[in-house]
Structures are given as structure tokens and as C-alpha cells.
């Protein structure tokens, strides 16, 4: 699950960095450091967003409490 929240963390950190820069309390050294971090985060976030098209799976029980994932095909009927 940790890896799954990385995008959210990255975006939060990016926002934090911008507000830190806005506050102007940082030394030039510090600000250069976090600026670089910010640019890396921005790249990371953009890359994450443009990752492959989503997958749709179906959870199937195989008996004895085991599960497997199958590709989902939506049937168009009923209800």
C-alpha cells in the first residue's frame, strides 16, 4: 500500500515546497535544494499521471478461500 500513496505524498510535498518558497524564509542554499526536489516531484507526478491505461479486473473465488484476478468483460444485460 505504501507505494500506492506515493503520488499523493509527492503532490502534497510539492505543494508544501511551493508554500515554503512563497514564505521566503529559506536561505538560497536551502531554497535551491528544495527547488530541485520540487522539480523532481513535478516530473514524478506528471509521469505517474500519464502511465498506462487502467486495467479492469474481476475478483474470482477459486474455492478454499483463494482468490484470483481475471480480466473483466462487461456483459450488457439485465437490470
Amino acid at each position, binding site marked *: 500500500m505504501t507505494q*500506492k500513496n506515493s503520488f499523493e505524498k509527492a503532490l502534497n510535498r*510539492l505543494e508544501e515546497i*511551493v508554500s515554503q518558497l512563497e514564505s521566503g524564509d529559506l536561505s538560497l542554499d536551502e531554497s535551491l535544494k528544495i*527547488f530541485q526536489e520540487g522539480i523532481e516531484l513535478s516530473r514524478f*507526478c506528471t509521469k505517474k499521471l500519464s502511465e*498506462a491505461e487502467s486495467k479492469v479486473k474481476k475478483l474470482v473465488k477459486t474455492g478454499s478461500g483463494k482468490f484470483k484476478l481475471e480480466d473483466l468483460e462487461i456483459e450488457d444485460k439485465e437490470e
Partner: protein
Amino acid sequence: MEQIKIYTVSEITREVKALLELNLPTLWIEGEISNFIHHSSGHRYFTLKDENAQIKSVLWRDIGDFLRFEIEDGMKVVVYGNISVYEKQGQYQFYVEDILPAGLGKLELAFRQLKEKLFKEGLFEEEHKKPIPEFPQTIGIVTSPTGAAIQDMIHILHRRMPSVEIILNPVKVQGDGAAREIAQAIKDFNQLQNVDVIIVGRGGGSLEDLWAFNEEIVARAIYASEIPVVSAVGHEIDFTIADLVADLRAPTPSAAAELVVRDRREVVTQIKNLTQSLIEYQLSQIQEAKIRVKTAVESYGMKKPWDILTQKGQRIDELVKNMGWLVNQSVKNSKQNLANLMGKLNALSPLSILERGYSVCYKLPELKLVKDVDKLKLEDSVEVRLHKGKFKGKVERIEKNW
């Protein structure tokens, strides 16, 4: 004679009233409406009856005005309230606090009772609700694999955030066993921990169709879920029990899909804006730093050391010059002194005295200068030195005075 208690009519009526109220607290009654009167005062009066009995009933205006259906004669209803006595007419009556049409009434009743029970247990407490992750990577869906709901959700999730993964745990959403399947599906996701958020729902339907979402087993599964649960039962007006327990309620499956993921374009814009701000602030900071450096370089303070240096240099030049003069002077002085001293030395030299005709006498053999005749005896050997040469001799006579 023994005292017999004689009641007044009012007294015994009050006794009866107290007995009824104490022994029959609020309760539900099912019956049919007759003699319905909507009085000009706003209160409603009717008789509740079945095949064998009837009860006069009163529905006060402040309750009656908010009913969602019209009461009419012949209607089968379930009423909630308490029995008391209308003293003026010596008549017991049912005071209605709530009234429901009978068929629907059973379900509504079950709904209300469960709602009351779960409310008391704290299942709807705000503080128990978990935050929905802002950027779920994988979304679990508990719904029918065949309805429009799943298609709508997949479509919207895809459109808004193409990178999101969807896992459907297919269930029956109505009919026998639906509630158990829904509850189990929520548990499955919690066991597998393979999704960031769960959407539980179905498209719209009648109260009976949606019933599974009002069952306790579903409510408890949602409450127990460690993964945040979004309810998505297509039922915009009323809340289901699932809605009340869920961490977030969406009015329809489509709405749930929209609530759960942010639109990618929106996020891309946000990142662009953040990056832009980042660059702008950094540029302005560098610019500011440049100006500070420039100002510092051009400041008096920065020039001062050079100034101090040239001034010191000048002073050194002066000192060197002075020193040369002083050295010269001192050499001159020394030469002069030396000449003077040599002159003095020369004047004092014994040789120069001898030159003027004096001589020096030494006693032998120790060659000791003699300045007094007392140091001499007759026959002592002496050496006498003159300006030029010396000679030896013997003392022949001693006289104290010249």
C-alpha cells in the same frame, strides 16, 4: 363503620389514565383507517380498526403536516405512539407519533428499528469515518457485474483518471442472499488489502430492490472495513443504512466514481501551476540574490579594504624613505664619533706620552709597572722603556723625592 373510598369521576379517570400510560408505553399498531377527519385546527382524527375492534386515534398537526403521504379511509397503516385517556369524554385514545402505509410499513419499520439500534451503537459516528484517499491507485467495486452501474463507474473512472486500476468483486445486489454477498465482498477486499477504496452500490430501484443495503450484515461489514467505503446506492432522496455507515455517501454509482478519483486534467493543471510557481519563486529568489551580491560588491564596505591597503602602502613608502635618511644620518654620526674617539684614544696612548720624552719603569722579573719607589729595593732589576727602545739596569739609590 369501615371507610369506603369514594372516587370522583375525575379521580378515577386519572387513575385509569395513569394505569394505561404506565403499563403500555409507546408501541406499534397495525390497522385500517376509518372516519378520517382533517379538522380545521390542523389535527387529524381517525379510528383504527380491524375485524373485531377499533381504537380512536389522534394525529397532532405538528406530526401530520410532515407526512409524505395522504391519509384516507380504508388505508392499511402501521402507527407508532402511546395509549392514553381523553378525560373529558372518558375515552381511551391512541396518540400517533408516526404513521406508515402498511405494506411498505414493514420494511420501513425494520429500517427504522435497525437505524435506531445502529445509531445507539455508534455506527454512524462521524469520528469513525475514514478519510477517502485523494489519489487511490486501485479501486474496489462491490456491485452487480451486469448492471448499468458497473459500466457507468468504469466509464467515469477511466475518463477521469486513466491510470487507475479497478477490481470488481461481483455480487447479487437484490434478492435472497444479496446482503450476505455484499458483506462478504467487502470482507474479501479487506482480507486481500489490494484496493485503496471500496465503492459499494447499485443503480436506482424501489425500496424493496435496495433492501440489501438496509441490512445489518452489510452495515456491520462496512463499519468493520479497514479500507474506506463509499456507498453508491441509486436512491437520491432517502438514505440507506449503508449510506449512513459508509465513510462517504454518493447519491449514485456515477457520483461515487466522480467523488473517488479526481479528474486527471485538473490534476495535471494543478501540477503545472505548482511547477510554474516553483520556477517563478526560484527565479525571483536567484534574481534577489544577484542584486544582493551586486549591492554588496559595490558597497563602501567592500571597497574599504582596498582603500585601507593603498593608504597603508603610502605610509610604508614614507617610512622606508624616512628610514633611509635616518640610517644615513646615523652612519654619519657614527663616523664622526669614531673620529673623535680615535683622537681621544690617540691623545691617551702611552706611546704618545713616551714620544714626548717620558719613560716607563718596570720591576723585574715580574715586569710590574713601578709608580712608587717604595716598591723598590736596592739592587732590584728594572726595565725602562723609552719612546724608542728599552734598557735594563739595577737600583743604586732610592730617594723619596725628586
